[in-house]
């Protein structure tokens, strides 16, 4: 009888522990989902804020910069030695 009670108690404890762990996993999974969702949104906002569409406007209006025309862009030749080394 004692053995039966001990075995039964062990089975109940094991099941209760499993359920508690399952609930914990669910909570953590929900947090992960939320963090992933927030990360996606934040990354999207970072891309928008760091994008040319916004930065160019700010640079022109606040810093009085401008997009250089082609004559203001200098393409510096790469030394031939570096080419050969690659």
């Amino acid at each position, binding site marked *: 009888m004692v053995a039966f009670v001990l075995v039964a108690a062990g089975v109940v404890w094991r099941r209760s522990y499993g359920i508690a762990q399952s609930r914990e996993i669910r909570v953590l999974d*929900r947090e992960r989902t939320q963090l992933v969702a927030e990360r*996606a949104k934040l990354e999207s906002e970072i891309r928008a804020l760091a994008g040319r569409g916004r930065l160019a406007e700010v640079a022109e209006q606040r810093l009085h910069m401008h997009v250089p025309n082609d004559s203001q862009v200098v393409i510096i030749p790469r030394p031939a030695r570096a080419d050969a080394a690659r």
Partner: protein
Amino acid sequence: MPTPHVSRIGIIHIALASFAAALLVRAGHVQLWQGRLWADRAARQHVTAAEVPAPRGDILDARELPLVQSRELVKLSVAPREVKDRGALAKALAKAGVPAPWVRRATDVKRVWVTLPGRYLPTDVAGLVATRGVYAVAVGERVTTTSEGTRRIVGRVDGDGAPVDGVELALDTFLRGVKGAAAVVRDARGRSFESPTAPGVAARAGNTVVLTINSALQEIAERALGEAAERMGAEGGDVVVLDPHTGAVLAMASRRPGRTSAATALTEPFEPGSTLKPFIAAALLAGGRARVDEVVNTHDGEWNYRGRRITDSHKASRMSLAEVIHQSSNIGIVQFAERLSPREEFETLRDLGFGMPTGVPYPSEAAGVLKPPGAWSAPTAASMAMGYEVTVTPLQLATAYAAIANGGELLEPALVKEVRSPDGRPLFKHRRRVVRRVMTPELAAQMRELLVGTVERGTAVDADLATFDVAGKTGTARRTAPGRGYVAKAYTASFVGLFPAQEPQFVILVKLDNPQGAYYGGKTAAPVSKVVLEAAIAARDAALDRTALARHERPRSRLSPDSAAAHSASGTERLARAQSAAAEPAIVPAPAPKAATPRGPVVLSLAHLPKAKPRVTTLQAVPEVRGLPIRTAVRTLHGAGFRVQLAQGYAPTADATAPAAGALARPGAVVRLSRQR
């Protein structure tokens, strides 16, 4: 022999034993024989299967930067009659940001079921979901880039995650993934949680789609298009940038006020006007029906052809085929096109891909209209030579010009570079696909040379760059309205350019719908192309091969003033005649220019050693005129050899120039004077 006597107690014992045996047999039957059946039934009562949504695959640009990503949110529903503490629920809903009218509905016991608007982060509503009577369903949300043009390309999904249009719809089978299943157990309080023992099936995320779009170039194109459309009061427009060697669509910007869906560069065909003339010329040259120096009578710009009045903006008595292309002469091209039979003219345009979809994965891509000769009327041949009675999409036209750029091969344009499974395994990779050869490499080179002339001394001088050659062709076509035919003073202005002309890396098409004021393609669309190319050259990541580009850079040394003046006179004079309708301020003859204060170069990039070929060029620094009275500023700029355009609105002094002070530009180039924003 005595008969066996069975006592009553014995009968009872037998009966009890039989009953016990029957119980044992039944128990054995239930436990051993039917055990699985009853276990399943019990599981069905305690465990319910829940669908696990599969996240849609990401959509990336050519540099692997995310354009669209998925994230999981929850949608809430409330059964008001199941809720015990409605006051607490109302507070919790309000805290989660649910609008007050919906909070009232959700706590109204007259209602059986209320689905709340909006989507919520799972943790934000975790407390709510634990409340009896509140039900949550996981839904996917697409986080899309802010670029409008990109959104038009990638398309949308509806509230249930079903694709609506764009790449989302065309490639839904790749993107949607496979839903999973989870076993959910309810505890004594009715709370549900995923079963720790019953196995679930994990959802499989959708595949990743990598587009050929370069997001940096896309932003450049969108910005240039937006600014130009606003400045010119255009109803809309499109910009397409294509890699002529692979067919990859690098950028595709579209603008239609009031409409934010559909990449109209794929879905809305238009009459291309003069941008079709080079293909007629190519057919004539390929068949030996004309030479580039062959001259026809262009009737001083007005000609009556079969009862129809044909006019030219650039009026001349005679023009060679080359000049017909440079000056976009309608009279000239109609006379040359008469040497082609209707079948030849039709087959020329058909072989270039007009009249059929290009095959890019985009729903509702338009085919355009190319009538077979049997459906032609008397003036159709002449109309088609001028780019009328045929409609093309911007992408079709850019693809046809790509054949000129790449040596004569018509390529299948590509919007999708790669499709990968969630574990990174490639499922599809774009490979260059040649549809057909439409001209020989020699003819393609000859056509590029012709188109360089259009930019250097023809109708497209405003597309020219200071340090690189650009080839291209302008188009200005009258617009139609449903049921009204051609509408007065309504035009589609366009320009298709090849950059750099010697070894094109970009085919760029700019189309503006109904620009106000100076409506010619050379005055409206061509400068937009220049803005895009300048920004692309300055950007580090705009899909340009700088090593190859450096090989075609013009030497920056200045030439003698004589040659500069000669070059300037030729380009400016012809432009002034061709674009007489364009509003230009009167320029007063000027004294010597104020000393320029050139700025240093602002962008440095590495490339292989350019093998600069000697080329005659004339570059002049734009003088600094900031703070000068407007009249003095105009004189100074004119004295430096530039044409001057004033921005709208009166300003007593000059604040800024475009190109900026110190920039090198060709004499004769337009410098815009504007007030500082």
